[in-house]
């Protein structure tokens, strides 16, 4: 019939060619059904198939030399016969394919074949994993050998109700439904096929003994890995409905056999590709990609088969003498899916490092492919939370992501039209700020998954990562902060690790800590350099310095160490340098100064001179701020620096652990508290507090906007009360009383508070210099707000008075402070 079919093509006039083609296509189902009948014939053993049927079929197909027929018939052949038979006859199939006419698209034949085999292989593995608990019932002795046939066929029977499933159904070849090209969709065919399938079982079983051993073993192959596989789920349902006669796993070289299965297949396929030089490259790569999937489905564990595939692809690329840039998009896409395959399949993305050829293949790709693969790799690592613990792992991964770190020429030139290398025949990826930040953010997050086995090695791992990131030029501003943060965090464990007595161990420890501090400093300074003075990055660097300074100067373990005090001092000095050189905008200046003050306030380990120098610097910069309210606030913040107390949270003793003596724990805690307290309070100086408060008051008074002045006065009042509560004796009750009086007189004198004037005018009088850096901007008019604020403060002082008078709280004597005056009753009208 085939010959007839082919002859149809050549008969008739050439102008009718297209019409004939169409007619022929319709007829193809007829031809195909022949094949199906053949396939479903009962009594056809595999050996018969192999020796008699197939060769004849194939010779028919090859000899007809007609493109359409060949294509269609080969596809039909692939789909009609069962997987195991295909496995056995791979050699013949491949030869036949080689002999096909050049115009036939090999890809459409080979890829479905490979996919079916890989689905088959993964199914077998899943079957073993799900089915092994059930012991074998020894229905028939010789069924032991027919292990492949039974689950297959039995699976087919019960899966009839689940007829429309994905390709992982064991029955797919007998129930051609959705995915088949053969357009036989009537259910009768389906039914009859399954009928004949069950008929075919019996002879199959009889021929069990005669079946070829390699396929048997292949079918028994049950890999020892338990890769989570979608295929498995479909099969699991099937198998649960089946009383499995699958005997207990005979672990006869399962892994090896699968590997040999793959390698034989692979040798055929590679031979095929090599013998067909005219095969378009993207087809060849697509075939390789599906072979890769096959190998991963067979057995994901050994890296070698996958590596071989990759090596072959590289060979092909080289042999065809194409530069990476000349790839058309189709090829590039295929290569991309090829490279992404292992990433998706391996549960541990780091396994990709074992594939020796992966890196070089990746590097030879176009920019875009490399980036996509790098992003996919990073996402996989982040999602699965895989930690990297050795230098090789870290180095390997960052090398694979190297494409993310170099800035492409487009970004710098800013226009997509500019193609500086031959690399980008198509428009590159958009390089706007957000996307870039996201990509680099992935790299930054990677840093947190680096967990060295101990602190010292962690530092070396971070160094490796940092050096790799430094290739990014000024992209480091996204990645370095994470590295620095990782390093700063190490200061904590280091503090805990301090050796008890001085000696060799301690000097070793000091050396390490110094190394760490130097690492931090070097990294941040490179960050500043590369940022070419951008104020945002400068602020970031400043904050990083401050965070490190705080970390270095808080812990008791670091207290008497010269090295660490120097390091902390240096960090703050560097922060000031950045402030002076790069931060020029007044809002940023205010924020930066406040951060420095906060860091100084938190520090405990500075010696007196260092502390004084640093605070003096703060004061100096504060007084040079542009806006008066900023100056005021910095001044009273500096006042805070001279009177520190132990935070309440540290007074709480740690929870008692099992096996600890309560009294001892308490004593240790009390000791600690005492040490901390003395460290914190060592610089306290009441006079300086007062001096700063007075200075602050003076500046506040000089504000042009009177309402703003009063607001600042009230803030100062709060601050003074705070100091008084903490028993800073320089802040006397008289001082507070004077301040209260000042506020009262000011509010009385200013038009904005004159209750005789109508409200809109009053509010309008409140137009002055905007107070941008205030912590809180009320929605109500400022004058009202200020009055209420004052009121609340007075109420607070009153409450403190009452508490102090009751004597039950640890408060100084508030009785001297006058806060309730007759005028206050009037204020409630406002």
């Amino acid at each position: 019939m085939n010959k007839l079919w082919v002859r149809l093509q050549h008969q008739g006039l050439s102008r009718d060619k297209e019409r004939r083609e169409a007619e022929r296509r319709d007829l193809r189902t007829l031809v195909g059904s022949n094949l199906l009948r053949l396939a479903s014939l009962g009594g056809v053993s595999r050996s018969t198939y192999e020796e008699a049927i197939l060769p004849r079929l194939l010779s028919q197909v090859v000899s007809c030399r007609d493109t359409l027929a060949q294509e269609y018939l080969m596809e039909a052949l692939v789909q009609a016969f069962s997987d195991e038979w295909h496995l056995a006859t791979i050699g013949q199939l491949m030869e036949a394919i080689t002999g096909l006419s050049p115009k036939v698209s090999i890809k459409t034949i080979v890829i479905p074949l490979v996919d079916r085999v890989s689905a088959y292989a993964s199914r077998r593995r899943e079957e073993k994993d799900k089915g092994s608990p059930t012991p074998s019932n020894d229905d028939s002795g010789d069924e032991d050998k027919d292990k492949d046939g039974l689950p297959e066929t039995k699976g087919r029977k019960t899966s009839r109700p689940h007829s429309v499933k994905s390709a992982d159904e064991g029955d797919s070849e007998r129930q051609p439904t959705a995915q088949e090209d053969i357009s036989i969709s009537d259910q009768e065919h389906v039914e009859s096929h399954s009928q004949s399938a069950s008929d075919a079982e019996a002879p199959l079983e009889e021929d069990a003994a005669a079946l070829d051993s390699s396929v048997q073993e292949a079918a028994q192959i049950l890999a020892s890995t338990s890769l989570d596989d979608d295929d498995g789920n479909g099969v699991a349902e099937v198998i649960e409905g089946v009383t499995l006669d699958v005997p207990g796993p005979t672990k006869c070289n399962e892994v090896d056999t699968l590997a040999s299965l793959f390698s034989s297949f692979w040798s055929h396929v590679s031979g095929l590709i090599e013998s067909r030089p005219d095969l378009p490259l993207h087809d060849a790569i697509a075939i390789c990609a599906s072979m890769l999937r096959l190998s991963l489905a067979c057995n994901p564990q050994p890296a070698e088969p996958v590596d071989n595939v990759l090596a072959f692809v590289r060979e092909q690329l080289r042999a065809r003498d194409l530069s990476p840039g000349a790839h058309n998009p189709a090829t590039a896409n295929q290569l991309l899916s090829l490279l992404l395959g292992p990433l998706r399949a391996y549960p541990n993305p780091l396994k990709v490092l074992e594939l020796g050829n992966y890196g070089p293949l990746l590097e030879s790709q176009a920019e875009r492919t490399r980036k996509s693969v790098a992003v996919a790799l990073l996402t996989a690592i982040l999602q699965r939370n895989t930690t990297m613990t050795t230098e090789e792992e870290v180095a390997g991964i960052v090398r694979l992501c190297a494409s993310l770190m170099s800035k492409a020429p487009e970004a710098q030139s800013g226009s997509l039209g500019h193609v500086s290398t031959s690399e980008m025949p198509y428009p590159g990826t958009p390089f706007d700020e957000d996307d870039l930040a996201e990509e680099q953010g992935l790299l930054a997050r990677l840093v947190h998954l680096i967990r060295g086995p101990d602190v010292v090695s962690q530092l070396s791992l971070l160094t490796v990562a940092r050096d790799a990131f430094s290739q990014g030029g000024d992209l480091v501003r996204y990645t370095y902060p994470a590295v620095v943060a990782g390093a700063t965090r190490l200061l904590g464990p280091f503090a805990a690790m301090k050796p008890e007595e001085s000696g060799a161990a301690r000097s070793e420890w000091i050396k390490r800590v110094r190394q760490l501090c130097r690492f931090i400093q070097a990294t941040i300074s490179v960050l500043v350099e590369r940022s070419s003075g951008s104020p945002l990055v400068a602020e970031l660097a400043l904050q990083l310095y401050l965070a490190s300074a705080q970390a270095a100067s808080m812990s008791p373990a670091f207290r008497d160490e010269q090295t660490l005090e120097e390091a902390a001092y240096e960090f703050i000095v560097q922060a000031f340098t950045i402030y002076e050189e790069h931060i020029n905008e007044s809002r940023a200046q205010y924020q930066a100064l406040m951060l420095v003050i906060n860091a100084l306030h938190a520090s405990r380990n500075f010696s007196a001179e260092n502390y004084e120098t640093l605070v003096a610097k703060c004061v100096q910069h504060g007084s040079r701020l542009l806006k008066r309210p900023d100056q005021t606030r910095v001044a009273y913040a500096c006042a805070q620096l001279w009177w520190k107390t132990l935070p309440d949270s540290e007074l709480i003793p740690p929870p008692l652990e099992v096996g600890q003596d309560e009294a001892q724990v308490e004593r240790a805690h009390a000791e600690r508290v005492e040490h901390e307290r003395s460290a914190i309070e060592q610089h306290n100086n009441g006079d300086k507090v007062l001096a700063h408060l007075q200075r602050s008051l003076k500046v506040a008074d000089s504000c042009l906007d009177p309402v703003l002045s009063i607001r600042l006065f009230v803030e100062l009042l709060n601050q003074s009360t705070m100091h008084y509560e903490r028993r800073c004796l320089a802040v006397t009750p008289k001082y507070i009383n004077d301040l209260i009086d000042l506020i009262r007189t000011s509010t009385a004198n200013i038009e904005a508070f004159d209750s005789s004037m109508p409200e809109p005018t009053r509010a309008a009088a409140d137009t002055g210099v905007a107070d941008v850096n205030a912590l809180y901007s009320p929605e109500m008019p400022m004058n009202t707000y200020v009055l209420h604020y004052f009121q609340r403060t007075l109420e607070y002082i009153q409450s403190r008075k009452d508490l102090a008078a009751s004597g039950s709280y640890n408060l100084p004597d508030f009785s001297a402070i006058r806060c309730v005056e007759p005028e206050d009753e009037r204020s409630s009208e406002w």
Partner: protein
Amino acid sequence: MHIPQRAADIPAKFRKLLVPGKIDQILCTGNLSDRATYEYLRGITPHVHVARGEYDDRTFPISARLAEQDLTLGLVNGHLMVPGGDVDTLAATARMMDVDVLVTGNTHRFEAYEEQGRFFINPGSITGAFSPLEMQAIPSFVLMEVKLGHVVAYVYQLVNDEVVVDRIEYKKE
């Protein structure tokens, strides 16, 4: 949260709890430091209030004040307050903003207490990012149920990879 600087991501167990649609408003004490994280928060609920932290860009306000069921809530990061995290300073700030409940951050240490008739909450850091004040932070966040003059705060902490929940109440006088 300090993503991506100090942490890779919000812990998976917390992500499972933060289901979109169940939460009315999010008060974030700042330092998200990542656009993607902000979008993630927006995905949970569109009403997100963020107070600027030192690592955020200028688009967020430095403080926020909300009125909810006759309670006023204040939100501020706290990095500009000296001394940071101190009880008296926080009390002074609450006085300045005239709020009943003050939510602050910056120390990465969970705290919740009542002082001078106001309620102070520091939800800690949801990613457990370290801070110089708290080098081994425990990931935590707080879910507040606000009723008429009454707040019930549930704090979720991730201790040894287990989610531990605690409950604190506050009633306005």
